[in-house]
């Protein structure tokens, strides 16, 4: 394939990945890796590198708006970044020694878990009380809603911190934002309101991804010619997806895309077991 054809196919594919990632709530990185490896035959290391660069771009771009609105809890994000960056460094170092078939199978399993998790019913909860560790770390805060400013408490800091370490490791190992795991840590374990959890997760992704991207860069995973169309395509796709999401029924869309993503994941696992990746 010539460079021009490869770039155009990648640009189109990355646009679709960003679009699906935005509508399904899973992020563009998880769709771009199967596309690069299974469809275009690119080595999984280059695919992980390009996906991680696109994660930094999309998460920083969307985090900007939420930070300015004051929904993001910056102290919470900063504190949990200790766990995610440490995990990400570990994951990136592990990626350089782990066999590619192992990475492909783990990626497929993570993808299925994230897709099923996106279908789970989410209820907005709000605890009033906080654990003493949360108070010492000044984690409880407030966020703006349609009906005025709401304050919330924070529980189980150590449990959430540990889950964040795992989220960071998967991010560094697989080149994904691992937003699903970050939200589980904050929403389900620490009992932080869903909206604050998702926006703070987005806010943390850039720093987490950069911690492992620096290692990827030095090891040659980040190939500029692949990254350029991927980053631009994913970002444009994500922006289009966000516009569509305002008009469409997100529940039906989520179900539709979850099926597509599970099919992609099974394909990755199959190819990993057969040793094709």
């Amino acid at each position, binding site marked *: *394939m010539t460079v*021009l054809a490869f770039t155009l196919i990648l640009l189109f594919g990355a646009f679709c990945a960003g679009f699906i990632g935005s509508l399904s709530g899973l992020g563009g990185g998880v769709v771009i890796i199967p596309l690069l490896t299974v469809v275009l*035959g*690119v080595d999984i*290391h280059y695919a992980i590198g390009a996906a991680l660069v696109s994660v930094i771009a999309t998460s920083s771009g969307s985090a900007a*708006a939420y930070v300015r609105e004051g929904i993001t809890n910056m102290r919470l994000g900063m504190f949990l970044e200790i766990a995610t960056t440490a995990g990400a*460094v570990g994951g990136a170092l592990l990626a350089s020694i782990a066999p590619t078939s192992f990475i492909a199978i783990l990626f497929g399993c993570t993808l299925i878990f994230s897709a099923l998790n996106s279908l789970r019913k989410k209820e907005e909860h709000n605890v009033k009380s906080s654990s003493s560790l949360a108070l010492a770390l000044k984690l409880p805060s407030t966020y703006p809603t349609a009906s005025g400013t709401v304050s919330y408490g924070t529980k189980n800091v150590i449990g959430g911190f540990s889950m964040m370490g795992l989220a960071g490791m998967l991010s560094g190992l697989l080149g994904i934002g691992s937003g699903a795991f970050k939200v589980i840590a904050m929403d389900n374990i620490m009992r932080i309101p869903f909206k604050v959890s998702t926006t703070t997760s987005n806010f943390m992704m850039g720093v987490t991804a*950069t911690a492992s991207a620096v290692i990827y860069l*030095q090891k040659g995973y980040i190939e500029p010619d692949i990254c*350029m169309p991927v980053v631009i395509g994913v970002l444009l796709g994500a922006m289009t997806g966000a516009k569509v999401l305002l008009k469409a029924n997100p529940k039906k869309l989520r179900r539709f895309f979850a099926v597509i993503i599970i099919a992609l994941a099974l394909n990755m696992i199959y190819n990993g077991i057969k040793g094709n990746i």
Partner: protein
Amino acid sequence: MQNEKIGDRDIQLVIGNLLRYGVWTALGVAALGGLIYLFNHEQEIVHYSIFVEKDVNILTLTKETLGGVIRGRGDDVILLGILLLFLTPILRIVFSLVAFFLEKDYLYVAITLLVIAIICFSVFFGFAH
């Protein structure tokens, strides 16, 4: 208390803008590099099915990239855009450090320094093999 609240709000605005303009600058540079690259290499055959592991120090890499940018090499201009993209979250952390320091929140100054230390560790150990 009132002053502190205004402080937090200002920080939110600055960090929000930093993230937004950082990403757009980085992507603009990468897109320009992409056009230069395509213009010079459009008919070449791609070879990404085999991974070639490298061990390059990020400082050497930055120096080589800047040299390539001066010579007008498209892939180096893309890489410069990617480096700018990495710099955006790092600048965000440095700015948070200054902000927590100005608010005299020394617990969070320490937490921010710890995150910076982990990223530095990743820079220095990423190529030590």
